[in-house]
Protein backbone atom coordinates (compact mmCIF):
# COMPACT_ATOMS: atom_id res chain seq x y z
CA UNK A 1 0.00 0.00 0.00
CA UNK A 2 1.56 3.28 -1.04
CA UNK A 3 1.61 5.79 1.78
CA UNK A 4 1.24 9.48 1.29
CA UNK A 5 1.54 12.55 3.46
CA UNK A 6 0.76 16.23 3.28
CA UNK A 7 3.08 19.22 3.33
CA UNK A 8 2.36 22.93 3.41
CA UNK A 9 3.74 24.99 0.55
CA UNK A 10 3.85 28.79 0.49
CA UNK A 11 3.78 30.81 -2.69
CA UNK A 12 6.23 33.55 -1.66
CA UNK A 13 5.07 35.88 -4.44
CA UNK A 14 1.44 35.82 -3.34
CA UNK A 15 2.27 35.98 0.38
CA UNK A 16 2.15 39.46 1.87
CA UNK A 17 3.02 38.59 5.45
CA UNK A 18 -0.43 38.93 7.00
CA UNK A 19 0.50 36.14 9.43
CA UNK A 20 -2.95 34.54 9.60
CA UNK A 21 -1.45 31.09 8.90
CA UNK A 22 0.95 31.38 11.83
CA UNK A 23 -1.95 32.24 14.14
CA UNK A 24 -3.98 29.24 13.06
CA UNK A 25 -1.10 26.71 13.00
CA UNK A 26 1.63 27.96 15.36
CA UNK A 27 2.76 24.34 15.81
CA UNK A 28 4.17 24.34 12.30
CA UNK A 29 4.36 27.96 11.15
CA UNK A 30 6.48 30.70 12.66
CA UNK A 31 7.20 34.24 11.55
CA UNK A 32 10.54 35.75 10.52
CA UNK A 33 11.68 39.19 11.80
CA UNK A 34 9.69 40.85 8.99
CA UNK A 35 6.43 38.99 9.58
CA UNK A 36 6.74 36.42 6.78
CA UNK A 37 5.95 32.75 7.48
CA UNK A 38 8.57 30.09 8.01
CA UNK A 39 7.12 26.60 7.66
CA UNK A 40 8.71 23.81 9.63
CA UNK A 41 10.02 21.14 7.29
CA UNK A 42 8.20 17.82 7.05
CA UNK A 43 4.86 16.08 6.84
CA UNK A 44 1.85 17.49 8.70
CA UNK A 45 0.87 14.96 11.37
CA UNK A 46 -2.68 13.63 11.19
CA UNK A 47 -3.88 15.45 14.31
CA UNK A 48 -2.91 18.81 12.77
CA UNK A 49 -4.40 18.27 9.32
CA UNK A 50 -7.66 20.01 10.20
CA UNK A 51 -5.81 23.07 11.44
CA UNK A 52 -3.61 23.00 8.36
CA UNK A 53 -6.68 23.09 6.13
CA UNK A 54 -8.05 25.99 8.13
CA UNK A 55 -4.77 27.82 7.72
CA UNK A 56 -4.93 27.27 3.96
CA UNK A 57 -8.51 28.55 3.86
CA UNK A 58 -7.69 31.49 6.11
CA UNK A 59 -4.92 32.98 4.02
CA UNK A 60 -6.21 36.27 2.59
CA UNK A 61 -3.89 35.95 -0.41
CA UNK A 62 -4.48 32.26 -1.14
CA UNK A 63 -0.74 31.86 -0.79
CA UNK A 64 -0.82 28.63 1.20
CA UNK A 65 -1.43 25.17 -0.26
CA UNK A 66 -1.62 21.70 1.23
CA UNK A 67 0.18 19.35 -1.16
CA UNK A 68 -0.03 15.58 -1.16
CA UNK A 69 3.28 13.79 -1.50
CA UNK A 70 3.93 10.06 -1.68
CA UNK A 71 6.20 8.83 1.10
Amino acid sequence: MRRSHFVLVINPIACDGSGVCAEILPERIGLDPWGYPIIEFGAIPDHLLDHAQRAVAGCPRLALTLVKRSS
Partner: protein
Amino acid sequence: MTPSSIGVLRSTGGPGSPSQLPPAGVERLLSGMGDLGRPVSLDDHLQRWGALPFWKGASFLDELDRSGLRGHGGAWFPVGTKWRSVRRSGIRSPVVVANGAESEPASGKDRLLVHHLPHLVLDGAAVAAACVGASQILVHVPDGAVPVMSRAIEERRRRSLDPCPIDIVVSADRFLAGQESAVVNAINDRAPAAPSFVTLRPVRERGVGGCPTLVQNVESLAHASLIARFGADWFRRIGTPDSPGTALLTVTGRWSEPRIVEAPLGVGLGECLGLGMDSSTRIQGVLLGGYGGGWITSQEALALPLTEESARSLGSSIGAGVVVLLPSDVCPLLEVSRVVRYLEGQGAGQCGPCVNGLDALATTMEQLAIQPRSIRHGATSIPTLCSLVEGRGACRHPDGVARFVRTASRVFDDHISLHLQRGPCHSTAQPFLPLPAARRRTVR
Protein backbone atom coordinates in the same frame (compact mmCIF):
# COMPACT_ATOMS: atom_id res chain seq x y z
CA MET B 1 31.28 43.13 -21.04
CA THR B 2 32.30 45.02 -24.19
CA PRO B 3 33.87 43.13 -27.09
CA SER B 4 37.11 45.03 -26.76
CA SER B 5 37.55 43.90 -23.21
CA ILE B 6 37.22 40.24 -23.93
CA GLY B 7 40.20 38.35 -25.24
CA VAL B 8 40.08 34.72 -26.16
CA LEU B 9 42.91 32.59 -24.89
CA ARG B 10 43.72 30.17 -27.69
CA SER B 11 45.99 27.21 -27.28
CA THR B 12 46.50 27.07 -31.04
CA GLY B 13 46.75 30.08 -33.29
CA GLY B 14 45.05 30.88 -36.54
CA PRO B 15 41.52 30.36 -37.84
CA GLY B 16 39.80 26.98 -37.59
CA SER B 17 40.96 24.75 -40.38
CA PRO B 18 38.32 23.48 -42.80
CA SER B 19 37.71 19.99 -41.53
CA GLN B 20 34.94 17.64 -40.64
CA LEU B 21 37.02 15.68 -38.23
CA PRO B 22 36.17 15.86 -34.55
CA PRO B 23 38.41 18.29 -32.66
CA ALA B 24 41.18 16.26 -31.10
CA GLY B 25 42.43 18.74 -28.57
CA VAL B 26 41.07 20.67 -25.64
CA GLU B 27 39.73 23.39 -27.86
CA ARG B 28 36.37 22.21 -29.16
CA LEU B 29 33.83 25.00 -29.32
CA LEU B 30 36.54 27.60 -29.77
CA SER B 31 38.37 25.65 -32.46
CA GLY B 32 35.63 26.86 -34.80
CA MET B 33 36.42 30.51 -34.13
CA GLY B 34 37.39 32.46 -37.19
CA ASP B 35 38.76 35.98 -37.31
CA LEU B 36 37.76 37.55 -33.96
CA GLY B 37 36.14 40.54 -35.59
CA ARG B 38 33.41 38.64 -37.44
CA PRO B 39 30.87 35.93 -36.79
CA VAL B 40 31.50 32.62 -38.52
CA SER B 41 29.23 32.48 -41.58
CA LEU B 42 27.01 29.53 -42.35
CA ASP B 43 29.28 28.47 -45.22
CA ASP B 44 32.41 28.56 -43.05
CA HIS B 45 30.53 26.81 -40.25
CA LEU B 46 29.44 23.96 -42.54
CA GLN B 47 32.90 23.70 -44.06
CA ARG B 48 34.45 23.46 -40.60
CA TRP B 49 31.97 21.08 -38.96
CA GLY B 50 30.02 19.47 -41.79
CA ALA B 51 26.26 19.31 -41.92
CA LEU B 52 24.33 18.49 -38.77
CA PRO B 53 23.54 14.75 -38.97
CA PHE B 54 19.90 13.72 -38.98
CA TRP B 55 18.87 11.90 -35.82
CA LYS B 56 15.53 10.14 -36.22
CA GLY B 57 12.80 11.13 -33.77
CA ALA B 58 14.11 11.24 -30.22
CA SER B 59 17.03 8.85 -30.84
CA PHE B 60 19.53 11.56 -30.00
CA LEU B 61 18.27 11.57 -26.41
CA ASP B 62 20.05 8.27 -25.71
CA GLU B 63 23.29 9.68 -27.11
CA LEU B 64 22.87 12.82 -25.02
CA ASP B 65 22.31 10.76 -21.88
CA ARG B 66 25.42 8.71 -22.65
CA SER B 67 27.47 11.84 -23.16
CA GLY B 68 26.73 12.99 -19.62
CA LEU B 69 26.49 16.59 -20.84
CA ARG B 70 25.47 18.93 -18.01
CA GLY B 71 24.03 22.39 -18.42
CA HIS B 72 26.33 25.40 -18.56
CA GLY B 73 23.81 28.03 -17.48
CA GLY B 74 24.64 27.67 -13.81
CA ALA B 75 22.85 24.64 -12.39
CA TRP B 76 24.85 21.82 -14.08
CA PHE B 77 21.70 19.80 -14.54
CA PRO B 78 21.99 16.79 -16.91
CA VAL B 79 20.91 18.01 -20.33
CA GLY B 80 19.53 14.67 -21.54
CA THR B 81 17.27 14.41 -18.50
CA LYS B 82 16.07 17.93 -19.09
CA TRP B 83 15.22 17.34 -22.76
CA ARG B 84 13.40 14.11 -21.88
CA SER B 85 11.22 15.94 -19.40
CA VAL B 86 9.85 18.29 -22.06
CA ARG B 87 7.20 16.50 -24.02
CA ARG B 88 4.23 17.36 -26.13
CA SER B 89 1.23 17.88 -23.89
CA GLY B 90 -2.16 17.42 -25.53
CA ILE B 91 -2.35 19.75 -28.51
CA ARG B 92 0.50 21.90 -27.26
CA SER B 93 3.84 21.40 -28.99
CA PRO B 94 6.92 22.28 -27.00
CA VAL B 95 8.96 25.45 -27.44
CA VAL B 96 12.75 25.59 -27.30
CA VAL B 97 14.37 28.72 -25.89
CA ALA B 98 18.09 29.23 -26.51
CA ASN B 99 19.00 31.31 -23.48
CA GLY B 100 21.84 33.73 -24.12
CA ALA B 101 20.73 36.47 -21.72
CA GLU B 102 23.95 36.11 -19.67
CA SER B 103 23.12 38.58 -16.94
CA GLU B 104 26.19 37.69 -14.86
CA PRO B 105 28.34 40.82 -14.98
CA ALA B 106 31.54 38.75 -14.72
CA SER B 107 30.62 36.38 -17.53
CA GLY B 108 31.22 36.87 -21.26
CA LYS B 109 31.18 33.34 -22.71
CA ASP B 110 27.60 33.33 -23.95
CA ARG B 111 28.14 36.68 -25.59
CA LEU B 112 31.18 35.22 -27.37
CA LEU B 113 29.21 32.22 -28.61
CA VAL B 114 26.25 34.28 -29.79
CA HIS B 115 28.36 36.87 -31.56
CA HIS B 116 31.00 34.62 -33.11
CA LEU B 117 29.63 31.07 -33.25
CA PRO B 118 25.88 31.59 -33.71
CA HIS B 119 25.47 28.50 -35.88
CA LEU B 120 26.85 26.19 -33.19
CA VAL B 121 24.15 27.53 -30.88
CA LEU B 122 21.43 27.34 -33.52
CA ASP B 123 22.43 23.80 -34.52
CA GLY B 124 22.02 22.82 -30.87
CA ALA B 125 18.62 24.49 -30.73
CA ALA B 126 17.59 22.65 -33.91
CA VAL B 127 18.64 19.28 -32.48
CA ALA B 128 16.74 20.04 -29.28
CA ALA B 129 13.67 21.06 -31.26
CA ALA B 130 13.76 17.82 -33.22
CA CYS B 131 14.15 15.78 -30.02
CA VAL B 132 11.26 17.33 -28.14
CA GLY B 133 9.04 17.86 -31.18
CA ALA B 134 9.06 21.64 -30.84
CA SER B 135 7.04 23.91 -33.08
CA GLN B 136 9.11 26.97 -32.35
CA ILE B 137 12.63 28.04 -31.40
CA LEU B 138 13.19 31.33 -29.64
CA VAL B 139 16.60 32.89 -29.17
CA HIS B 140 16.72 35.00 -26.01
CA VAL B 141 19.62 37.43 -26.29
CA PRO B 142 20.54 41.02 -25.40
CA ASP B 143 19.76 43.80 -27.81
CA GLY B 144 23.35 44.02 -29.11
CA ALA B 145 23.18 40.45 -30.43
CA VAL B 146 20.10 40.97 -32.56
CA PRO B 147 21.90 41.92 -35.81
CA VAL B 148 24.30 38.95 -35.80
CA MET B 149 21.58 36.52 -34.77
CA SER B 150 19.13 37.85 -37.35
CA ARG B 151 21.67 37.37 -40.11
CA ALA B 152 22.51 33.86 -38.95
CA ILE B 153 18.83 32.89 -38.76
CA GLU B 154 18.23 34.30 -42.24
CA GLU B 155 21.20 32.35 -43.66
CA ARG B 156 19.66 29.15 -42.32
CA ARG B 157 16.13 30.01 -43.41
CA ARG B 158 17.29 30.38 -47.01
CA ARG B 159 18.56 26.81 -46.91
CA SER B 160 15.62 25.46 -44.90
CA LEU B 161 18.02 24.01 -42.36
CA ASP B 162 15.81 23.93 -39.29
CA PRO B 163 12.73 21.90 -38.24
CA CYS B 164 10.72 24.94 -37.17
CA PRO B 165 10.77 28.75 -37.28
CA ILE B 166 13.35 30.61 -35.23
CA ASP B 167 12.62 34.02 -33.72
CA ILE B 168 14.51 36.39 -31.47
CA VAL B 169 13.35 37.76 -28.12
CA VAL B 170 15.40 40.61 -26.66
CA SER B 171 16.46 40.01 -23.06
CA ALA B 172 16.19 42.69 -20.40
CA ASP B 173 19.30 44.21 -18.89
CA ARG B 174 18.66 42.80 -15.43
CA PHE B 175 20.42 40.15 -13.32
CA LEU B 176 17.35 37.92 -13.25
CA ALA B 177 16.63 38.23 -16.97
CA GLY B 178 18.13 34.78 -17.64
CA GLN B 179 16.22 33.00 -14.87
CA GLU B 180 14.11 30.22 -16.36
CA SER B 181 10.60 31.34 -15.41
CA ALA B 182 11.54 35.00 -15.87
CA VAL B 183 12.50 34.17 -19.46
CA VAL B 184 9.12 32.55 -20.01
CA ASN B 185 7.31 35.50 -18.43
CA ALA B 186 9.19 37.96 -20.61
CA ILE B 187 8.26 36.02 -23.73
CA ASN B 188 4.64 35.74 -22.63
CA ASP B 189 4.63 39.52 -22.46
CA ARG B 190 4.46 39.86 -18.74
CA ALA B 191 6.92 41.71 -16.52
CA PRO B 192 10.48 41.11 -17.72
CA ALA B 193 13.05 39.65 -15.30
CA ALA B 194 10.32 38.62 -12.85
CA PRO B 195 10.36 34.92 -11.95
CA SER B 196 7.21 32.98 -11.16
CA PHE B 197 6.53 30.51 -8.39
CA VAL B 198 6.70 27.38 -10.51
CA THR B 199 7.02 24.65 -7.90
CA LEU B 200 3.52 23.39 -8.56
CA ARG B 201 3.65 23.92 -12.33
CA PRO B 202 7.16 23.80 -13.83
CA VAL B 203 8.09 25.54 -17.05
CA ARG B 204 8.79 22.19 -18.73
CA GLU B 205 5.06 21.48 -18.40
CA ARG B 206 3.62 24.92 -18.94
CA GLY B 207 5.75 27.79 -20.22
CA VAL B 208 5.73 29.92 -23.34
CA GLY B 209 2.12 30.32 -24.47
CA GLY B 210 1.15 27.62 -22.00
CA CYS B 211 3.27 25.09 -23.91
CA PRO B 212 5.92 22.75 -22.49
CA THR B 213 9.13 24.77 -22.71
CA LEU B 214 12.81 23.88 -22.76
CA VAL B 215 15.01 26.77 -21.65
CA GLN B 216 18.63 25.85 -22.35
CA ASN B 217 21.83 27.87 -22.08
CA VAL B 218 23.50 28.65 -25.41
CA GLU B 219 26.77 26.98 -24.40
CA SER B 220 24.94 23.77 -23.52
CA LEU B 221 23.31 23.86 -26.97
CA ALA B 222 26.69 24.40 -28.62
CA HIS B 223 28.13 21.33 -26.89
CA ALA B 224 25.01 19.35 -27.87
CA SER B 225 25.54 20.29 -31.53
CA LEU B 226 29.04 18.80 -31.44
CA ILE B 227 27.81 15.65 -29.70
CA ALA B 228 25.23 15.34 -32.47
CA ARG B 229 28.08 15.30 -34.96
CA PHE B 230 30.81 13.38 -33.20
CA GLY B 231 29.01 11.29 -30.58
CA ALA B 232 29.02 10.65 -26.86
CA ASP B 233 32.25 8.64 -26.84
CA TRP B 234 34.14 11.48 -28.46
CA PHE B 235 32.63 13.93 -25.95
CA ARG B 236 33.76 11.81 -23.03
CA ARG B 237 37.39 11.64 -24.19
CA ILE B 238 37.92 14.77 -22.10
CA GLY B 239 36.75 15.30 -18.54
CA THR B 240 35.63 12.99 -15.76
CA PRO B 241 32.71 10.54 -15.58
CA ASP B 242 30.59 13.07 -13.66
CA SER B 243 31.89 16.21 -15.35
CA PRO B 244 32.65 15.27 -18.96
CA GLY B 245 33.80 17.52 -21.78
CA THR B 246 35.01 21.09 -21.73
CA ALA B 247 33.64 24.30 -20.25
CA LEU B 248 34.00 27.93 -21.23
CA LEU B 249 35.37 30.00 -18.36
CA THR B 250 35.40 33.78 -18.13
CA VAL B 251 38.55 34.55 -16.14
CA THR B 252 39.06 37.93 -14.49
CA GLY B 253 42.18 38.89 -12.60
CA ARG B 254 44.63 36.49 -14.19
CA TRP B 255 45.61 38.63 -17.18
CA SER B 256 45.38 42.36 -17.81
CA GLU B 257 41.91 41.91 -19.34
CA PRO B 258 39.18 39.35 -18.70
CA ARG B 259 39.54 36.37 -21.04
CA ILE B 260 37.49 33.42 -22.13
CA VAL B 261 39.18 30.05 -21.85
CA GLU B 262 37.88 26.67 -22.96
CA ALA B 263 38.99 24.39 -20.15
CA PRO B 264 38.98 20.59 -20.01
CA LEU B 265 36.93 19.49 -17.03
CA GLY B 266 38.81 17.44 -14.48
CA VAL B 267 42.15 19.19 -15.00
CA GLY B 268 43.50 21.40 -12.20
CA LEU B 269 42.27 24.98 -12.26
CA GLY B 270 45.81 26.22 -11.55
CA GLU B 271 47.03 24.35 -14.58
CA CYS B 272 44.21 25.79 -16.74
CA LEU B 273 45.25 29.29 -15.66
CA GLY B 274 48.98 28.62 -15.93
CA LEU B 275 49.49 29.40 -12.26
CA GLY B 276 51.61 27.57 -9.74
CA MET B 277 51.04 27.40 -6.00
CA ASP B 278 53.53 30.23 -5.51
CA SER B 279 50.93 32.62 -6.98
CA SER B 280 48.56 31.98 -4.10
CA THR B 281 50.02 34.76 -1.97
CA ARG B 282 49.09 37.39 -4.55
CA ILE B 283 45.46 36.24 -4.68
CA GLN B 284 43.20 37.02 -1.72
CA GLY B 285 40.44 34.70 -2.80
CA VAL B 286 38.83 33.13 -5.86
CA LEU B 287 35.19 33.42 -6.82
CA LEU B 288 33.77 30.52 -8.81
CA GLY B 289 30.46 30.37 -10.61
CA GLY B 290 29.20 33.91 -10.60
CA TYR B 291 27.70 36.33 -8.11
CA GLY B 292 25.51 33.49 -6.88
CA GLY B 293 28.48 31.16 -6.71
CA GLY B 294 31.04 30.65 -3.98
CA TRP B 295 34.40 31.91 -2.83
CA ILE B 296 37.29 29.54 -2.20
CA THR B 297 40.82 30.25 -0.98
CA SER B 298 43.60 30.74 -3.50
CA GLN B 299 45.29 27.51 -2.39
CA GLU B 300 42.06 25.59 -2.79
CA ALA B 301 41.54 27.13 -6.22
CA LEU B 302 45.00 26.38 -7.57
CA ALA B 303 44.71 22.75 -6.46
CA LEU B 304 41.08 22.33 -7.49
CA PRO B 305 40.24 19.72 -10.11
CA LEU B 306 37.81 21.55 -12.36
CA THR B 307 34.71 19.45 -11.69
CA GLU B 308 31.32 20.43 -10.37
CA GLU B 309 31.66 17.87 -7.58
CA SER B 310 34.97 19.29 -6.35
CA ALA B 311 33.60 22.81 -6.44
CA ARG B 312 30.47 21.78 -4.52
CA SER B 313 32.56 20.00 -1.89
CA LEU B 314 34.01 23.44 -1.11
CA GLY B 315 30.58 25.07 -0.96
CA SER B 316 30.95 26.56 -4.43
CA SER B 317 30.06 25.65 -8.03
CA ILE B 318 31.52 26.04 -11.51
CA GLY B 319 28.15 27.67 -12.21
CA ALA B 320 28.25 29.89 -15.27
CA GLY B 321 32.02 29.41 -15.62
CA VAL B 322 32.94 32.64 -13.88
CA VAL B 323 36.41 32.65 -12.32
CA VAL B 324 37.55 35.81 -10.52
CA LEU B 325 40.95 36.07 -8.85
CA LEU B 326 40.76 38.81 -6.24
CA PRO B 327 44.07 40.71 -6.07
CA SER B 328 45.73 41.54 -2.77
CA ASP B 329 45.38 45.31 -2.98
CA VAL B 330 41.58 45.51 -2.68
CA CYS B 331 39.44 45.25 0.44
CA PRO B 332 37.51 41.99 -0.02
CA LEU B 333 34.71 43.12 2.28
CA LEU B 334 34.19 46.32 0.35
CA GLU B 335 34.07 44.34 -2.89
CA VAL B 336 31.63 41.80 -1.46
CA SER B 337 29.39 44.53 -0.04
CA ARG B 338 29.23 46.30 -3.40
CA VAL B 339 28.08 43.10 -5.10
CA VAL B 340 25.58 42.20 -2.40
CA ARG B 341 23.98 45.64 -2.62
CA TYR B 342 23.83 45.27 -6.41
CA LEU B 343 22.18 41.85 -6.06
CA GLU B 344 19.69 43.23 -3.55
CA GLY B 345 18.70 45.91 -6.04
CA GLN B 346 18.38 43.34 -8.81
CA GLY B 347 15.74 41.27 -7.01
CA ALA B 348 12.29 41.25 -8.58
CA GLY B 349 10.80 42.68 -5.39
CA GLN B 350 8.14 40.00 -5.23
CA CYS B 351 8.97 37.97 -2.14
CA GLY B 352 9.02 39.42 1.37
CA PRO B 353 11.87 37.31 2.76
CA CYS B 354 14.10 38.20 -0.21
CA VAL B 355 13.27 41.92 -0.30
CA ASN B 356 13.85 42.27 3.44
CA GLY B 357 16.55 39.69 3.91
CA LEU B 358 18.84 40.81 1.10
CA ASP B 359 18.55 44.40 2.26
CA ALA B 360 19.57 43.34 5.76
CA LEU B 361 22.46 41.30 4.35
CA ALA B 362 23.64 44.14 2.17
CA THR B 363 23.48 46.59 5.07
CA THR B 364 25.41 44.21 7.30
CA MET B 365 28.15 43.69 4.71
CA GLU B 366 28.38 47.44 4.15
CA GLN B 367 28.73 48.02 7.87
CA LEU B 368 31.44 45.38 8.08
CA ALA B 369 33.29 46.97 5.21
CA ILE B 370 32.94 50.65 6.09
CA GLN B 371 31.96 51.10 9.74
CA PRO B 372 32.78 47.78 11.39
CA ARG B 373 33.02 49.12 14.89
CA SER B 374 29.47 50.47 14.69
CA ILE B 375 28.07 46.93 14.53
CA ARG B 376 25.93 46.33 17.61
CA HIS B 377 26.84 43.41 19.80
CA GLY B 378 23.43 41.77 19.41
CA ALA B 379 23.07 42.40 15.69
CA THR B 380 21.74 39.54 13.60
CA SER B 381 24.66 37.44 12.46
CA ILE B 382 25.54 36.82 8.83
CA PRO B 383 24.83 33.06 9.05
CA THR B 384 21.41 33.78 10.57
CA LEU B 385 20.53 36.25 7.84
CA CYS B 386 21.63 33.76 5.21
CA SER B 387 19.41 31.06 6.77
CA LEU B 388 16.49 33.49 6.76
CA VAL B 389 16.61 33.94 2.98
CA GLU B 390 17.63 30.51 1.73
CA GLY B 391 14.78 28.60 0.10
CA ARG B 392 12.26 31.35 0.89
CA GLY B 393 11.97 33.06 -2.48
CA ALA B 394 10.15 32.06 -5.63
CA CYS B 395 13.52 31.68 -7.34
CA ARG B 396 17.06 30.88 -6.23
CA HIS B 397 18.29 34.47 -6.23
CA PRO B 398 18.38 34.77 -2.41
CA ASP B 399 20.05 31.35 -2.20
CA GLY B 400 22.78 32.55 -4.55
CA VAL B 401 23.37 35.68 -2.52
CA ALA B 402 23.50 33.62 0.66
CA ARG B 403 26.09 31.29 -0.86
CA PHE B 404 28.15 34.24 -2.06
CA VAL B 405 28.11 35.75 1.43
CA ARG B 406 28.59 32.54 3.43
CA THR B 407 31.62 31.53 1.40
CA ALA B 408 33.04 35.05 1.58
CA SER B 409 32.72 34.90 5.37
CA ARG B 410 34.78 31.74 5.40
CA VAL B 411 37.48 32.78 2.95
CA PHE B 412 37.85 36.33 4.28
CA ASP B 413 37.43 35.36 7.92
CA ASP B 414 40.80 36.83 8.95
CA HIS B 415 39.99 40.05 7.17
CA ILE B 416 36.66 40.28 8.99
CA SER B 417 38.47 39.96 12.33
CA LEU B 418 40.88 42.69 11.26
CA HIS B 419 38.00 45.02 10.46
CA LEU B 420 36.27 44.33 13.75
CA GLN B 421 39.43 44.95 15.74
CA ARG B 422 41.04 47.77 13.84
CA GLY B 423 38.45 49.34 11.59
CA PRO B 424 38.07 49.61 7.81
CA CYS B 425 40.91 49.16 5.32
CA HIS B 426 41.02 52.58 3.71
CA SER B 427 42.10 50.79 0.56
CA THR B 428 42.55 53.25 -2.30
CA ALA B 429 42.31 50.58 -5.00
CA GLN B 430 39.72 50.95 -7.74
CA PRO B 431 36.58 48.77 -7.50
CA PHE B 432 37.48 45.37 -8.87
CA LEU B 433 34.46 43.07 -9.16
CA PRO B 434 32.67 44.12 -12.35
CA LEU B 435 29.22 45.62 -12.04
CA PRO B 436 27.05 47.32 -14.67
CA ALA B 437 27.11 51.12 -14.57
CA ALA B 438 24.86 52.38 -11.78
CA ARG B 439 21.39 53.29 -12.87
CA ARG B 440 18.54 54.91 -11.06
CA ARG B 441 16.85 52.37 -8.81
CA THR B 442 13.24 51.64 -9.64
CA VAL B 443 10.90 52.60 -6.84
CA ARG B 444 8.78 49.61 -5.84
